[in-house]
């Protein structure tokens, strides 16, 4: 287990290095010039700015400086916001995205497990059909449509009721988080419901359930002790990719609900061609996702001993 953990961590570091290099190569091939526009008005200012950002060095040297700074956890200074460090930007905006993401993952996992178990229990009956129809809808409708429609219906609902049930946009209190998190988690919830359903059905037809029934256990005990516990395992494996999908999917939800998260900031930085912010955010997100996937895999091995043996 320790050896496996070390191996995975080593692989993770290599992957992050690959992401950082790909980002560096990508950003150096962006057409145009970070100092173009009205900032570098004359040659002296231009030279000073180039020296400040290290752009007067050869590309290979820039790459090593970039790597060294990255190892130290220093992502540099923003190009468009004077004297603002990329680290500050991440420190300020990432907790917002993370809170939203954690809530969304919670919604998705709880909803997925609950609805998946329900559909399996009511197989080929009305609740099954209704939930599976909603699941197909959840997989097919893009999150931004859900975001816009939920906002629209919330506005109408608030108008009809005369008071505000939930705020339509913005950030700050728990009530601000509920709707965006639900919208963000919906697609993943649909996917997890499907997964949970097939995994439940598989467990239900297995031998140990028949044995449990034969020895006279009550149906509730079989359900909670034997079925649910075993059926949840595959859902945990997809948690890693789900976290990745939800954190990056947050862009749209942050945009629509006017949430000051890192995703919205990234889109803004791309539009303004803020080189250091783009590179810093990409590498940071990349590293975050890589280690999240590793973490989920390790947790999975801890929960399910069968995986550890392989």
């Amino acid at each position, binding site marked *: 287990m320790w050896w496996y953990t070390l191996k995975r961590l080593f692989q993770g570091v290599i992957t992050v290095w690959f992401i950082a290099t790909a980002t560096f190569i990508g950003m150096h091939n962006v057409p145009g010039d970070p100092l173009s526009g009205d900032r570098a008005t004359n040659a002296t200012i231009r030279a000073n700015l180039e020296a400040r950002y290290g752009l007067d060095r050869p590309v290979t040297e820039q790459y090593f400086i970039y790597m060294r700074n990255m190892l130290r956890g220093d992502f540099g200074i923003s190009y468009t916001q004077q004297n603002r460090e990329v680290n500050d930007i991440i420190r300020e905006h990432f907790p917002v995205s993370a809170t939203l993401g954690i809530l969304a993952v919670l919604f998705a996992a709880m909803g997925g497990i609950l609805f998946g178990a329900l559909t399996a229990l009511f197989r080929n009956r009305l609740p099954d059909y209704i939930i599976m129809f909603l699941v197909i809808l959840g997989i097919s409708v*893009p999150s*931004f449509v859900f975001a*816009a*429609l939920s906002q629209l219906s919330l506005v109408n609902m608030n108008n009809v009721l005369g008071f505000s049930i939930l705020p339509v946009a913005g950030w700050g209190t728990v009530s601000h988080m509920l709707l965006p998190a639900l919208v963000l988690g919906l697609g993943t919830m649909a996917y997890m419901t499907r997964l949970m359903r*097939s995994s439940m059905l598989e467990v239900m037809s297995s031998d140990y359930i028949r044995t449990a029934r034969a020895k006279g256990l009550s149906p509730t005990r079989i359900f909670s002790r034997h079925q649910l516990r075993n059926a949840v395992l595959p859902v945990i494996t997809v948690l890693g990719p789900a976290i990745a999908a939800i954190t990056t999917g947050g862009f749209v939800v942050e945009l629509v609900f006017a949430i000051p998260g890192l995703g919205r900031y990234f889109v803004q930085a791309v539009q303004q061609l803020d080189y250091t912010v783009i590179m810093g955010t*990409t590498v940071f*997100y990349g590293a975050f996702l890589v280690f999240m996937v590793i973490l989920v895999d390790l947790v999975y091995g801890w929960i399910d001993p069968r995986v550890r043996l392989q």
Partner: protein
Amino acid sequence: MENNPVIRRLRPADLEPLSSQSAAPLLVRPSRSYWQDAWGRLKSNKRALVSLYLIIGLLLFTFAGPLVWRVDPALQDIDQISVPPGADRGAMVVDPFVAWDNVSLDDGYQGGTGLSLAGDPTTQSVRLHWDAIPGASGYRVYRNNYPTQDADALGLPLLQINNTQQMYYEDRLDLRAQTYYYSVAALDESGQLTGDYESLQADVVRVITVNEVRARDLSDNPDALQPGDQVRLSWHPLGTDYLGRDMLARLMAGARVSLFIGLLAPLFFVAFGVLYGATSGFVGGRFDSVMMRFADFVVALPFLLFMILFQVVFGIGPGESGIVPMLIALIILSWPATARLVRGQILQIREEAYVSAARLLGASQNYLILRHMIPNTLGVILVTLTFAVPAAIFTEAFLSFIGMGVAPPTASWGSMCNEGLKTMLTHPHELIFPAAMISITVLAFNLLGDGLRDALDAKMRNTE
């Protein structure tokens, strides 16, 4: 094998059934090939069949639609901006506009009626005049889309008058055929609202001049038109967007972009993934592990971040639509999943008994690939392809929605949703139509993918 004379002498002809066995009982049913069987199973799956028809309908909409509905998706109908489907499109013919001067034009105004309309309110102009409000040293004119209830919420301020002489106003600002609520509020000496105001309701009528009718070719005989006649403006079955462009034509143009990316990108990256995975699986050994390690790296790249990054790297110049950069970015980032899948399949099939048997019979490498490997992976590849289409359409819509996809004025369903979001509260049709198109398309391809998986691959069949 060379050392064994028995096996070397064996030829396929040696394995032909003996003639004496031809008297064996005949098959009850004619034999069906794998594909015939799969087609039969797909046909019996109602959901998959419906989605197949939906996709055919969608392709017709995209490619035959523009031949039937010949409206330029970039053409702006400035008389009908943000018009919902099925709206009244009548317009009254009027004389060309003449500037209004409250005093010199004789409109029979006597005063004493408070805030009132002079003449009929039309989209050409709305003319207001009012009597002096006691204690006012100036006025501010407001326009609102909703009935005014509160002195603090009178709507859009149109004009501020800092004297008490002018007590009339002519509104010509972007008038639509709807009901407006005008207010005149009294101002004190310092220009602050005193709280006194008067309101009125104006039902604006859409009008058009003869010259405009002629320019837009709305009447067969424009010279015979008299003021007061009705003409019908051009027809937009699904309404228009915020720039007066025809929604139906734009949905068709957007379908072309979305389906172009949604079909072409998966075709390319699945093809590349198949080649990559098949080579890797077939060669095996060290080469295989290096190839797969590289694929793992590409998988680890945060997908959307790199999609956006690539959009920046390729750069969208002026006049370009940004479709090609998105296509390339999708191909670069999406191939590893297919490569992994195909590699796994090849490794599995390589160990199958029938492949060993064929090899034993002296089948060549090419024969093995063409006769056994490809046909047996084709089902899986087809299923992957079907599921890759909605994923690619989703990605395109997502990127265009956040403004990182196709560049305006190119229409795509995602960018139309983005534009529709801004007017969601007042004109929801501009958001709902493109959103529904995306959802239906993605739904159809997902259901077809489910059906194909069930029909083509017994091993992957899910327990639904």
